[in-house]
């Protein structure tokens, strides 16, 4: 299949699936959410607007982790570190080399993707817990490197004092983030409903089977990891311009916990899961601001409760998996029928 043809197929499939999904109840809620976000600067106070902005950026970071963990089954612990790499790369490109920030964001994303390669190329043949351990170690290396190489990163104090985007106009920045995040969500959506996404889920369910059906699973995982990490890098770049300081805690295990918590609380392996998770977690945290200071305590508790009692998360349902299973069962039934006939 030529690239143009597969691209055309992907687009038509995205179109049909998108028109179906947008008319469903979840789609309507999503559309309302977008409307709210579009009008937010007109009726929200500054504080609430910055919370909305934060939610948007986290949605990008968490949905890209969901792409890896939820669809491919690759539990990357490097995600927060690459998010940090994107942040540093974007800001350093813009501040030190005078590259326009919008272009620097692209570079940051690509660099985060490239940074994933040293670990994915050798380790994607490992499975399950082993991949989690390798990526955890890699994340720690990046974190320590950021602290150690002070010339580039300013060490533990972090990087600050760089010029904000759009001359500091927060409203323009807000709309820029909104449009960019929506566009990148659409890209992920297209990827997931296309053949690529089907193969991703096949890899998650049974990698050997997917491979036997003629798919280069290793390459798909490599590309998937690259895309997911690049998106994390872009999210990191946006976050850097949002809070206007980057420091090593941005790459810490703590940040990784936050992303994982949001994704799992929302529902792993569902497109809406990342969005619901971020809104739920950040929303709860902001609601409880002042009431309970231990935000991480709430997140840890939520994480445990969800994993124990709602295995598919708040937004998740077992449907997707069931459809796959149905098809698979139908397939085996037909297969055994032919076998019997042959006898």
């Amino acid at each position, binding site marked *: 299949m030529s690239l143009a043809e597969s691209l055309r197929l992907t687009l038509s499939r995205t179109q049909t699936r998108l028109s179906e999904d947008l008319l469903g109840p979840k789609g309507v809620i999503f559309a309302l959410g977008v409307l709210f976000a579009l009008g937010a600067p007109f009726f929200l106070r500054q504080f609430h607007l910055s919370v909305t902005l934060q939610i948007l950026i986290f949605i990008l970071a968490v949905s890209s982790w969901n792409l890896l963990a939820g669809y491919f089954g690759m539990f990357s612990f490097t995600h927060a570190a690459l998010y940090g790499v994107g942040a540093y790369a974007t800001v350093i490109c813009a501040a030190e080399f005078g590259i326009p920030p919008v272009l620097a964001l692209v570079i940051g994303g690509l660099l985060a993707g490239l940074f994933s390669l040293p670990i994915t190329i050798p380790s994607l043949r*490992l499975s399950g817990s082993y991949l989690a351990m390798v990526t955890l170690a890699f994340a*720690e290396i990046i974190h320590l490197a950021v602290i*150690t190489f002070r010339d580039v990163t300013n060490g533990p104090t972090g990087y600050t004092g760089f010029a904000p985007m759009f001359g500091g106009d927060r409203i323009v920045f807000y709309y820029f983030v909104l449009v960019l995040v929506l566009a990148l969500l659409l890209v992920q959506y297209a990827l997931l409903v296309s053949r690529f996404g089907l193969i991703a889920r096949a890899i998650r369910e049974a990698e050997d089977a997917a491979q036997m059906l003629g798919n280069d699973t290793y390459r798909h995982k490599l590309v998937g990891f690259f895309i997911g990490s690049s998106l994390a890098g872009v999210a990191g770049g946006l976050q850097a311009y949002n809070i206007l300081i980057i420091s090593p805690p941005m790459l810490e295990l703590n940040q990784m*916990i936050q992303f994982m918590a949001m994704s799992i609380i929302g529902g792993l392996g569902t497109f809406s899961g990342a969005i619901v998770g971020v809104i739920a977690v950040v929303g709860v945290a902001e609601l409880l601001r002042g009431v309970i200071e231990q935000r991480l305590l709430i997140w*840890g508790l939520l994480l445990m409760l969800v994993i124990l009692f709602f295995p598919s998360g708040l937004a998740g349902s077992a449907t997707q998996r069931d459809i796959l299973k149905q098809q698979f069962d139908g397939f085996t039934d037909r297969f055994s029928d032919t076998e019997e006939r042959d006898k």
Partner: protein
Amino acid sequence: MVDLLLVIQQIFNGILFGGQLALVAVGLTLIWGVTRILNFAHGAMFMMGGYAGFLTFELTGNALLALPGAVLVVFVLGMVTEFGVVRRLRDRDNAEFAAIIGTFGLAVVLENVVRASALGSTRRTLPTIVPGVWEVGPFFFVAEQVYLFIVALAALGVLFAVIKYTRLGMAMRAVAQDQNTAKLMGVRSDRIYAITFGISAALAGLAGALLAPIFNIYPSVGWQPFLLAFIVVIIGGLGSVRGTLIAALLIGVLRSVSLTFTSSQQTSMLLFLAMIVILIVKPTGIGGVIDG
């Protein structure tokens, strides 16, 4: 040749440090070996042991009682963890991840519960039981470090004996090899899992209380030893208790010696790199070489 003396001194220090490291790491590898679960709350058990020891000392005024107090409390905590969290996740399709997330969540909860409690984030410490420094020739030994090393070795010796010679140890090895067959042979695997978790946690708790006089105790104290133990466990070979012991001593020495030449961050980076290489090239680690 002053450098050589320094290096030898650091090798001794490294061995002493390795003994303490082994105490934390063995628990981690034991859980993996028997239950195939990565316990991300292991560092939190270390921290809870430190606090249990501290509270025991506050209540009784006796620093010697701190150790058994810590062991007991954290043993129970480990059993409760298995019963309340891990057991519910074990039969899932994605049990590995579910358990990682569940124990991770528990670690975050424990850390922040302590932080929110009356204990707060204040650094606590236990008094030294064996003060003083011994001079042997040109070398110095902090008496406390030596005592810690001896207690750690004794605890590990008891653990080895239990695994090797008792019925409980035999049941643990049976469950580790094949859960279903062990069950058919009348081993109550659920109980074995809980006890294994308890023992593993108790070892971490003991380490926490032992190291309290040196490192202080604070809510997030467990992550550093957890990550180090993690490296040790991987290099030693997941699930191999003997491999872990050797790896702990090796890494203890490596770390001490390299600390004289480079910063602790660079040392840790090298260790993590070694961990990645081992995972990719020989996932069975040292244990795969000596056991197999």
